[in-house]
């Protein structure tokens, strides 16, 4: 962005891309997919002490069609995986995914027949937040990393839609 001083009124010049990305990164609408204790910690991040609203991501939407950030919080079982994939596919582009906690990222201690050993095997994941469950600071750090990804996004990427 640059400021042109020579004009009569103040004008801010920028690229559409930068302006749109600035808006996007400061108003991420998360779709919470809380299936376990990480979901409880996710609620704590929303609450007043941690207050994810400071980062513009407090508008939790339980409809994937209105969200652009999927928060996978908790273990995903073989019965839940098709549901998660459906929800991911229902989210409009552009979209980002946080895998929150040990279980979503790797299956955690649940090395059993019914638990997916990391959701990144089957859906794209942008940021992994470690912890069992992660502290609110951890998730906020993950959100800031997503914001940095959003900042770098380019429109030319969208045209590659299949």
């Amino acid at each position, binding site marked *: 962005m640059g400021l042109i001083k020579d004009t009569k009124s103040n004008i801010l010049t920028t690229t559409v891309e930068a302006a749109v990305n600035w808006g996007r990164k400061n108003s991420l609408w998360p779709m919470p997919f809380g299936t376990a204790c990480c979901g409880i910690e996710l609620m704590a991040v929303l609450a007043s002490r941690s207050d994810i609203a400071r980062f513009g991501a407090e508008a939790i939407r339980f409809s994937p069609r209105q969200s652009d950030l999927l928060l996978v919080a908790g273990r995903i079982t*073989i*019965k839940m*995986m*098709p549901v998660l*994939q459906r929800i*991911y*596919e229902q989210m409009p*582009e*552009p979209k980002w995914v946080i895998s929150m906690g040990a279980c979503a990222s790797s299956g955690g201690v649940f*090395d*059993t*027949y*019914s*638990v*997916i*050993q990391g959701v990144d*095997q*089957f*859906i*794209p994941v942008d940021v992994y937040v470690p912890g069992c469950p992660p502290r609110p600071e951890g998730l906020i750090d993950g959100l800031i990393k997503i914001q940095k*990804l959003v900042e*770098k*996004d380019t429109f030319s*990427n*969208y045209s*590659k*839609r*299949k």
Partner: protein
Amino acid sequence: MDLSDLTTRLQEKFPDTVLEVSEENDEVTLQLKGSSILEILSFLKADGFNFLADLTAVDNLTLGGNERFTVVYHLLSHERVERIVVKAYVSEEKPLLPSVESLWKTADWQEREVYDLFGIEFESHPNLIRIMNPDEFNGYPLRKDFPRQGRGERKDFPIVERMTRGDRE
């Protein structure tokens, strides 16, 4: 707890079925052959055990025992505040028991759970389908010979690709 009168009557009425009656820590346990479980439980229900507190199963593969599976019924009499445990043995070759859903409605889902995890079938159950695992799941995971990490079920999903931002850092 004194259930000796009841157990004596049971042994008199079903002499071939009752294998063993034992009492430990104030808890009476009846061990039975599986086939006539419905008659025995009807008898117990008529005797005042109105509540089926739990219905579960045990795989005796590594424990030993009369048969491969034990189906365990925990009964409670609200009126007399008495409990009784009924263990019915089921063979591996023919894992089939009569359903007790006609006596206690709660047995509906509990028997489905036992069917889902142990593969024990319940005759004349109204809706014997899997309750927790996906419908297309193969095998019975709580059997001791089922591998803990499964047989590849958790790897059997399509991979959803990133649609647009393929070349993002």
